[in-house]
């Protein structure tokens, strides 16, 4: 939008100058925040003036107070770090395992044929359903959450690694073969870098899944973390606290996603952003 400004557009802006040329053609820049403010205003108004139970649905002002107290008191930070640590640990394990298993599976057809039924069975199973079992086995501490996060985020990475390593155009393979490259040289110089856009698409999904996994683990049985905080607030009917933690979680998710997109663009600089969207 801002990269290519033709002279015609510039003239248009001068003619219709309404003081807000940037919003022309992008009404959502104004409408989205406006609708948000209106929604919050109506919410606040409705809770105060209609028969809405403020315990079940606290007004935005009370949620904001809870959020502020939690942020300044250090309560959220402590639990935030726990959850982030669990999710990050799970994601890293899943990323390493996904890339290694995906590579082995695509390089050795015997391994693929052998493991395929297991992988399909594991993938079709809702992994959240195993969470209680994992908590029994690995306890109420962080390790069970790390494992659940890793399990949930493993498959999107694996699938994308396999698809990425397979999708290599014939002409590039011909080039390396014409130089008598070995199987492992083809993997290292061609297949792996060629798969990076796919692998990052998998990472994008997996990093959100890993947060999900950590939260679920804390729901099932935890001693700390934002998920634990939600359950604790729920049992005491502190609904504004629940909302406040949800806001923290949403912010975490968006931040992590944007961060990964940034890394993605730096590492896979040659791929069009279209590709990223198409493969994710």
């Amino acid at each position, binding site marked *: 939008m801002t990269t290519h400004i033709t002279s015609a557009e510039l003239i248009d802006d001068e003619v219709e100058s309404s003081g807000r040329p940037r919003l022309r053609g992008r009404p959502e820049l104004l409408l989205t925040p406006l609708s948000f403010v209106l929604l919050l205003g109506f919410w606040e108004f409705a809770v105060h003036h209609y028969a809405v139970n403020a315990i079940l649905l606290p007004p935005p002002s009370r949620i904001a107070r809870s959020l502020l107290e939690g942020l300044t008191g250090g309560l959220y930070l402590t639990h935030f770090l726990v959850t982030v640590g669990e999710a990050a640990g799970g994601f890293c394990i899943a990323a390493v395992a996904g890339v290694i298993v995906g590579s082995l599976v695509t390089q050795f057809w015997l391994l693929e044929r052998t493991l395929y039924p297991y992988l399909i069975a594991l993938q079709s199973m809702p992994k959240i359903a195993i969470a209680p079992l994992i908590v029994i086995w690995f306890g109420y501490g962080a390790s069970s959450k790390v494992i659940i996060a890793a399990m949930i985020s493993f498959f999107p990475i694996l699938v994308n690694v396999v698809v990425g390593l397979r999708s290599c155009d014939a*002409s*590039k393979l011909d*080039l*390396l073969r014409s*130089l*008598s*490259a070995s199987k492992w040289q083809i993997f290292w*110089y061609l297949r792996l870098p060629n798969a990076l856009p796919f692998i990052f698409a998998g990472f994008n999904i997996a990093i959100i899944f890993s947060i999900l996994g950590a939260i679920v683990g804390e729901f099932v049985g935890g001693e700390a973390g934002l998920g634990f905080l939600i359950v604790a607030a729920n049992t005491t009917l502190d609904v504004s606290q629940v909302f406040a933690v949800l806001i923290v979680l949403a912010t975490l998710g968006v931040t992590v996603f944007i961060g990964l997109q940034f890394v993605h663009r730096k590492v896979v600089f*040659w791929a069009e952003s279209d590709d990223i969207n198409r493969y994710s």
Partner: protein
Amino acid sequence: MSALAPLITIGEVGKTYRTTSGGAVKALESVSLEIQPQEFVVVVGPSGCGKTTLLRILAGLALPSDGRVLLRDQAVRGPRRDVGVVFQDAVLLPWRTVLGNVMLPALILGLDRAAFRRRAGELLELVGLGGFEDKYPHELSGGMRQRASIARALLHDPSLLLMDEPFGALDAMTREAMNLELLGIWQKAKKTVFFITHSIPEAVLLADRVVVMSPRPGHIVETLPIDLPRPRGLDIFGQPRAAGYVTRIREKLGGAAPGSAALSRLEMSS
């Protein structure tokens, strides 16, 4: 052309592909050709005449169904390190710089990196890409990419250069410029070149010998020595002898329909 032992001997080579439906497609039939060291051989033929198949067999990327190919008296049964291939598209790896792409053969073949980095720099100068070492392929034009791929094919100093319609995707102006540059490179580097094209004037401009192939199943219709003085420029098409070659090749390709002579004149003047 010397009467020394040929660099390549193609003996009665045939190639039959099995289709997925169980049928068989005969791509090449009984192709025989000898190529001398440092000779520039250009193959012309209609689409689907098996030219690319023949090149893939020479590159060791495909095996013949019948006959055999000898490279210096050794049968070609797979890719060989003294062969460089230039494909229809430049086939550069988008995550490597121009220098990184040109260096690829050295990495794959396990050659001395420092020495070959110097050579890569010299080759990039030779193909007119000096100063573009650190650019990425998506920052280059189509012609520049194909130059880089030529430098890459020359890096490990192969004695045989296989070129599969390397300039087919370029516009006419760039193509002419690239043809002349290729001639310059060939004269300096003294390689044997096996070059595939659709363009008859391109064949006449470049070749020591033009090999004309028939539609599928591809076989050699005629081998025509091009007896024009070198170094050649685009001005050769002003000579009646060059025009004669163009007409002759066109006739051999089956283009003896009325108006083909006029067409060839048109193509020459462009």
